[in-house]
């Protein structure tokens, strides 16, 4: 069992839904990312997704694309991310999941990536452009290093395939709320709850829902039907709103960490009501 499994089984016993915030590593700098991780944990986050930036993030909407670009201006790469996680591991035991595209992982070397990620204290990975059909080599390396590789299912995934994905996915299953890309939405599809219940009937593994979720009200509604709720773009947007532009790029303006913390606190409270 790794930290992800332990977290979900603890929450399950309490009948509680996990709050899973996402931020891009190094947006706008690594020091801010470290501070955000600790603050979000303090405010009730149960697992944190750390984005590894990529030049061509084709599953992401404009908000996370922009965050990715800011991080790349700071030359964030897998090595920088692993070093940051190593430092964080001296201060926190919260489950940390790396979200990134497959090319940076492949160029690093699949086995080395798994080894170094595990050594740093990464508990899982979400690779949106690595479906089960192509994931064999990475899934094996991850398994051997006790890293949960988390697969995604979409609303249009056929049942037979959904079962295969559920079987292959470790830690939890990531249910994509919309047929679309990441980005805060004020309206979620009406059939979302039904879709989620359907996946949960097909598997005993925890199911977390993400893409487009941006408000406490949505989190509360989804907490009734999901084991975890993922919020990304809405948090990245708060970081963006506080940015200060300077010669070399961007830095985090005053109030970044506390504003994100406040927002995460509200989201966590919403999971408890759902």
């Amino acid at each position, binding site marked *: 069992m790794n930290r992800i499994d332990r977290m979900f089984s603890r929450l399950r016993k309490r009948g509680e839904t996990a709050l899973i915030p996402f931020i891009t590593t190094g947006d706008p700098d690594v020091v801010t990312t470290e501070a955000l991780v600790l603050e979000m944990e303090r405010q009730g986050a149960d697992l944190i997704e750390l984005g590894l930036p*990529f*030049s*061509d*993030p*084709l*599953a992401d*909407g*404009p908000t996370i*694309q922009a965050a990715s*670009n800011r991080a*790349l201006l700071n030359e964030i*790469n*897998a090595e920088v991310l692993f070093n940051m996680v190593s430092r964080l591991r001296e201060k926190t035991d919260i489950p940390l999941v790396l979200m990134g*595209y*497959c*090319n*940076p*992982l*492949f*160029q*690093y070397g699949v086995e080395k990536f798994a080894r170094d990620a595990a050594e740093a204290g990464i508990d899982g990975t979400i690779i*949106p*452009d*690595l*479906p089960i*059909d*192509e994931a064999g080599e990475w899934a094996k390396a991850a398994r051997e290093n006790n890293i949960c590789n988390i*697969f*995604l*299912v*979409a*609303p*249009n*995934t*056929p049942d037979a*395939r959904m079962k295969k*994905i559920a079987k292959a996915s470790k830690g939890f299953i990531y249910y*994509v709320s*919309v*047929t*679309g*890309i990441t980005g805060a939405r004020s309206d979620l599809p009406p059939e979302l709850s039904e879709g989620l219940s359907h996946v949960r009937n097909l598997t005993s593994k925890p199911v977390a829902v993400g893409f487009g979720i941006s408000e406490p009200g949505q989190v509360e509604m989804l907490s009734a039907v999901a084991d975890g709720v993922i919020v990304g773009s809405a948090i990245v947007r708060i970081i963006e709103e506080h940015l200060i532009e300077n010669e070399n790029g961007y830095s985090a303006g005053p109030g970044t960490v506390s504003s994100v913390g406040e927002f995460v606190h509200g989201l966590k409270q919403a999971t408890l009501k759902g």
Partner: protein
Amino acid sequence: MKNNKNRGLKAGCQPDRKGHFGIFGGRYVPETLMPVLAELEEAYRQVRRDADFKREFAAILKNYVGRPTPLYEARRLGDALGGIRVFLKREDLTHTGAHKINNTIGQILLAKRMGKKRIIAETGAGQHGVATATAAALMGLKCEVYMGRKDTVRQAMNVFRMELTGATVIPVDSGTKTLKDAINEAIRDWVSNVSDTHYIIGSVVGPHPYPAMVRDFQSVIGREARQQIKKVTGSLPDMVIACVGGGSNAMGIFYPFACDQEVRLIGVEAAGEGVDTEHHSATLTVGSPGVLHGTMSYLLQDKWGQIKGAHSVAPGLDYPGVGPEHSAFRDSGRAQYVAVDDEEALRGFRLLSETEGIIPALESSHAIAYLKKIAPELSGKETVIVNLSGRGDKDVETVAEIFRDRSAK
């Protein structure tokens, strides 16, 4: 396979069930697209055997596109190059002026059969965008084309052509604001509108089944050329030369010759300002394998796997990736890939214009330039086919500007 010596090619000729050409190809896409690609693959599998589809496709290629295109012997060019026999496959004479239309007609017929109401496409130079907008107008389908903001400025005439035929051009401001990012945006649109939209990719790139499907639609070029050359010379050519960006005109002419081991296949990439600079598009010459736009292939990337920007004077070659089957051909040695720079391409552009009165596209000029480059090493007895993938009208302004700048200096 007809005989033993061709066996080694089998892996290079057809992808496996999941769309792999050796280690290349495949489907590296968000889960939302997986069912859509499966649906597309199945629909394509059906039409491949459907006589009605084939008839309809062939009729449009003949009466609307203007096929078969001539295989023209360029005698003055041949003489200028030491007496070799040079044949030009005249894709520049097709409707809309480039080979791109072969693929867009095939895909639009398929989209129609699948009941799709809306067509999206990406475009760099605008040739594929124009060909898609044209096909959509022909079929009465709604069409939106993603184009990098920089390209909309560089290729303003093509933007207007697309708009004239009823398409909407959407400028892309993300990333490098060029073709690579236009493809990202088109994929994002497709992910968000899977039920009613078909994405017409313009080259032999992207996730399976696109590389094989686009190749099949384009291979009409090579099938015609193979018959035509045999009729004129009584034998197969010694060499087939084509420019390679994503690689659709090259794969279209190479593929029907793939099992003819005696025919040398040569793909010419854009060396831009030089392969040892940061400004080129020579993916197969100096790139390395990785994943971009849903497929594993050679790429221009840094050590951390971030995709680099590409450059070429020819906007249609300005792409940091390449079709996965070309990557397989490169590694198996079935085709050779070389690169010529902007300067050489401009000289090729001039050479063909002056010797034959044919103004080639800057993309196709790379193929001419390479032939010129190797001509001194040839015996003078060779027969060569060059795929003249497009005409140069779109480039005349760019070239005029370059020549003007020079004479000013």
